[in-house]
């Protein structure tokens, strides 16, 4: 299936639902790793919205990227409870381990706040990290 077919399919899947835009954006992000200009255009047409409206929504939310990034992503929680448990002291080593190969992104809270520092890779969560454990996660990402 071509990517434009896939896109059309995602739009058709959700079109009849109330508030279809966010579910569509989630699926597009998951399928293509981003919601780019082409997708915005197709979605706008499909939902009878202006491109500006769709772009306004895409750019509002942290989950949607303008451009796909082929690198693996490690999300690290840097909210208060994880700070209280020392996540900031791990960041130098984490950045070194990541280098250019891995993208580290910041997330504010994964709901594991008694057991930080915590990270997420894909849908898998990791708790009670120390520098060695986090570095290993990043190296294996």
């Amino acid at each position, binding site marked *: 299936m071509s990517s434009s077919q896939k896109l059309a399919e995602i739009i058709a899947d959700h079109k009849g639902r*109330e*508030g*279809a*835009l*966010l*579910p569509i*954006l*989630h699926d597009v992000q998951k399928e293509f790793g981003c919601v780019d200009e082409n997708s915005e255009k197709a979605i706008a047409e499909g*939902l009878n919205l202006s491109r500006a409206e769709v772009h*306004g*929504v895409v750019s*509002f*939310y*942290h*989950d*949607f990227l303008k451009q796909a990034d082929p690198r693996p992503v490690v999300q690290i929680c840097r*909210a*208060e*409870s*994880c*700070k*209280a*448990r020392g996540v900031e002291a791990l960041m130098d080593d984490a950045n070194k381990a990541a280098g250019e190969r891995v993208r580290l992104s910041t*997330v*504010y*809270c*994964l*709901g*594991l*706040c*008694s*057991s930080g520092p*915590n990270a*997420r890779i894909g*849908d898998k*969560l*990791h*708790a*009670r990290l120390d520098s060695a454990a986090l570095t290993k996660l990043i190296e294996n990402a």
Partner: protein
Amino acid sequence: MTTIRISDDALARACGADELAAAFEKAGASVERTSSWGMQWLEPLVEVDGKGYGPATPDDVTAILDGSSDKGIGVIAEHPFIAGQQRLTFARAGKTRPLSLDDYEATGGWSGLKRAREIGPEAIVEEVLSSGLRGRGGAGFPAGIKWKTVAGAQADQKYIVCNADEGDSGTFADRMVMEGDPFALIEGMAIAGEAVGATKGYVYLRSEYPDAIDKMEKAVRACAHIVAPFVCEIRAGAGAYVCGEETSLLNSLEGKRGEVRAKPPLPALKGLFGKPTVVNNVLTLAAVPHILMEGGASLYDSLGIDRSKGTMPIQLAGNIKHGGLYEVAFGITLGELVNEIGGGTQSGRPVKAVQVGGPLGAYIHPDQFDIPFDYEAYTAADALIGHAGITVFDDTADMGAMARFAMEFCAAESCGKCTPCRLGAVRGMEVIDRIRVGGRELAGVETEPQMHNMPKKGRSPDEEIQLLEDLCETMKFGSLCALGGFTPYPVMSALKHWPEDFRK
């Protein structure tokens, strides 16, 4: 064959529960995956015939099975952390398989909904009112009054919206309900639907909770025939903290930017797609099935103090020895929670500060530990119960850095609608940075001789602090919602109690 019980809660899994369960199966035991007891420092916790072992690793399997393990904590239900609680919302925690309809029914599930259907809308609202239940999402607004408003509104369509955006650091009770007792939340929503005449419900669930999304999707499908004609649907958020604010959440559900709406109109009258809408937090709705049981409302009302009725699932987090979920009647002091139940810091160092109520809550000094858990008492102390997350910091914490982070967080998560929040938070970061480096000198164009109206010198740290105080006043009074309006509380409390952390 021995039956082993291990939680499948996200925290237990993040600490290795799946690998542990597999190891027990390999050793020939049969494993049941249950909800979590909420003693998170012991996860993964293994339960064998009511006795607990934790935190366990695959290396402990043999010893646990032959009874020689030194990780035993005795009978779980008698552990002081559990025995001291009064669990209503979390009555099933640790005891049932989250997605088992059999387990749910066998523990009183659906009896609230059944009774609600018998007594009818007016009586339901009356019971929720008389229970004294207040919204658990942060503002503490009486749930019954909100329901009454929606019930009284005339419309062809009404909605029940569950706020499962739980963005506050230090909170995870919503997550534990959705992963551990999802049917209770759905039952609460169906009862709300019955009360106000809504047949459609949405759960707006943050995308940072993949396990909860998965469990809720499954639970909604499994019980569709029981809650019908009420229909429930799960919608994932997209990483914006501000979408926990109810009107921003409604915009997001409608497929718009998550910008906050001005009130009025109240969502109760013009909410989702302009229709009358109940927006309640997960904990508010999950408390409802119990309240609707015979005698549930009066029991709820009999617990707690003053106008804070019933129980609160308090979340102990951060640098704390015994972190986890502690549901207890209102009135308990912060000192008891942190020092006695929580066992002090995990690092063993002295407690320096405690943040209650998430990123918008004040930093509380140990001198204030006698403050009782009560909405009004916290408000009087310029503090916030919020969603009842408690984040503990030890004496290595840099409170100047935490104050700066409060501004940084506000800047990152502002919806952008009003100036004091959108710009104020950025300026707040800059001012705090300047305080911490000792003020500022005149620079650039300011030093030109023709700039007659410029101050003749830079600003001292004291003058910068004055500026920060002014900025905080502006944010407090000039912001549309509590993101901009409450960010000054963590900032100013940090400055008040730990001024030395602002001078380097």
